[in-house]
């Protein structure tokens, strides 16, 4: 056991492990690229959907049930399914990651919109704001903390799951996990897993710190 962690330590800090096309730096960049792009696409789908449902109150059923749907979705199964249907490309990976991220974004955006005090919305309309102005000037800013929470959760989930890119022969930190498994190199498997975990935790801390800074004037 001790030996394993010692080797893991050496693996993680050795300079040769960090450089080159198969190095940690490059794999990390790939991993972040997949994750950010997938989250961005998911946001482009989930945000308008959540805002629309929250503003009109129509389709609340969808917003609420999407969360449990997201949890139940077998990500690897989805990758394989799209891979079989569409052939080998990054598409199956992005489809799976986006499908994973959308529910968290929609659900939290919707939750943020419904948490806006009805009196405040009533006052906004009563002062003479039109529907769009109520949405953009009142509902959206007030829902923003929860919207950002949704984006953060989605990104963390995607980062943790983007290892599947390696499953269909692409890069990212998953490379170490799948290669290590194939080569029965436990140190490499563990190294990949630790890196993914560290990236997820660091992003989570950084983003929640940013949220706290942005909303320091808000109560609660």
């Amino acid at each position, binding site marked *: 056991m001790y030996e394993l962690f010692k080797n893991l330590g050496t693996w993680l800090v050795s300079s040769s492990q960090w450089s080159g096309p198969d190095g940690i730096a490059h794999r990390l960049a790939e991993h972040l690229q997949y994750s950010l792009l997938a989250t961005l696409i998911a946001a482009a789908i989930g945000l308008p959907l959540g805002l629309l449902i929250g503003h009109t109150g129509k389709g609340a059923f969808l917003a609420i049930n999407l969360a449990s749907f997201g949890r139940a979705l077998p990500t690897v199964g989805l990758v394989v399914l799209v891979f079989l249907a569409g052939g080998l490309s990054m598409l199956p990976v992005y489809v799976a990651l986006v499908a994973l991220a959308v529910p968290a974004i929609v659900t939290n955006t919707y939750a943020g919109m419904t948490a806006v005090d009805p009196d405040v919305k*009533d006052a906004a*309309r*009563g*002062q*003479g704001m039109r529907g769009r102005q109520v949405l953009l000037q009142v509902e959206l800013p007030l829902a923003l903390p929860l919207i950002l929470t949704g984006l953060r959760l989605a990104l963390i989930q995607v980062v943790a799951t983007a290892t599947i890119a390696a499953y269909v022969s692409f890069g990212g930190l998953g490379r170490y996990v799948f290669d290590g498994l194939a080569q029965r190199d436990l140190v490499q498997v563990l190294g990949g897993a630790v890196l993914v975990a560290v990236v997820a935790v660091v992003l989570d801390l950084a983003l929640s710190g940013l949220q706290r800074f942005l909303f320091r004037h808000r*109560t609660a």
Partner: protein
Amino acid sequence: MIQFDAVHKRFPNGTTAVHDLSLEMPEGGVTVLVGSSGCGKTTTLRMVNRMVEPTSGTIRVGGRDVTRQDAAELRRSIGYVIQQGGLFPHRTVLDNIATVPLLLGWNRRKARARAAELLETVGLAADAGKRYPHQLSGGQQQRVGVARALAADPPVLLMDEPFGAVDPVVRTQLQDELLRLQKELNKTIVFVTHDIDEAVRLGDRIAVFRTGGHLVQCAAPEELLARPADDFVAGFLGAERGLKLLSLRTLAAVPQGPAPDSGTWTLVLDEARRPLHWRSADDAERPVRPLGDSDSLLSALNESVASPTGLIARVDADGELTGVTSRDDILEHANRAHAELGVAA
């Protein structure tokens, strides 16, 4: 002037909120809508700025049918204050107040300047403008709500139980402030409350609603208290309506005489002839609360009951003693006032 003509409101679930309402709310006056909850008073108020659309009938503000105007533009021309303030929690107090001017397309500097001016109008310190609503007390938030409604100087102000969520002391302050503001601004105000004392205090006219959206009586407070239309209104006004009537009459017309300088109790004054307290022959002291001409007969009666001599001390604007009035004089004047109004027993 606001006119309701045969207005009906039935909600999709089948309940009738307002039943065949015809009512005029005079320009420059405060019309208070009172009634227990579910009587349609808030719905009536919200139909004025189209937050609720009438099922049938017409509502005119300044002669123009509200349903023929763009709803958002109509609302910008009517001040709107709700319970709890409904302030925007993510905007500073100044930006909250500047809401309607900005919607009307004023430039930011002009809107902010106007907002700063209004802070003073509603009795808030200038540095409150940079704060956020949650950093203010309930009473202060309510003042900001009033300032926001006044920002674009609308001729009409709708106030939906604006002082319902603050404690009684603050409520009285806010009521005083509103009366002071109204003296300067002369707005046409529609004010919803379920508190009959608040209605009597603020209203030039009071409209009493019964459950089911029926208007039972609309009259000046004195008229309402003196001659309630039916048992429902009488019940709503409460058992002390004779006393409430006294709260509408001032002391000004009640005669006064010189303060007694001998007897069991004498009134002690300071160098400026301001009453300090009552003192008895054996040096006991009792407090005195001097009253001016603008105080009500009700306060006078209350003070005369508390006074060891049954006399109240009357003072001028500087607090200087002008004379005393006996409980009998107050009661006689009250009786005469009641007789004039033909108060029903």
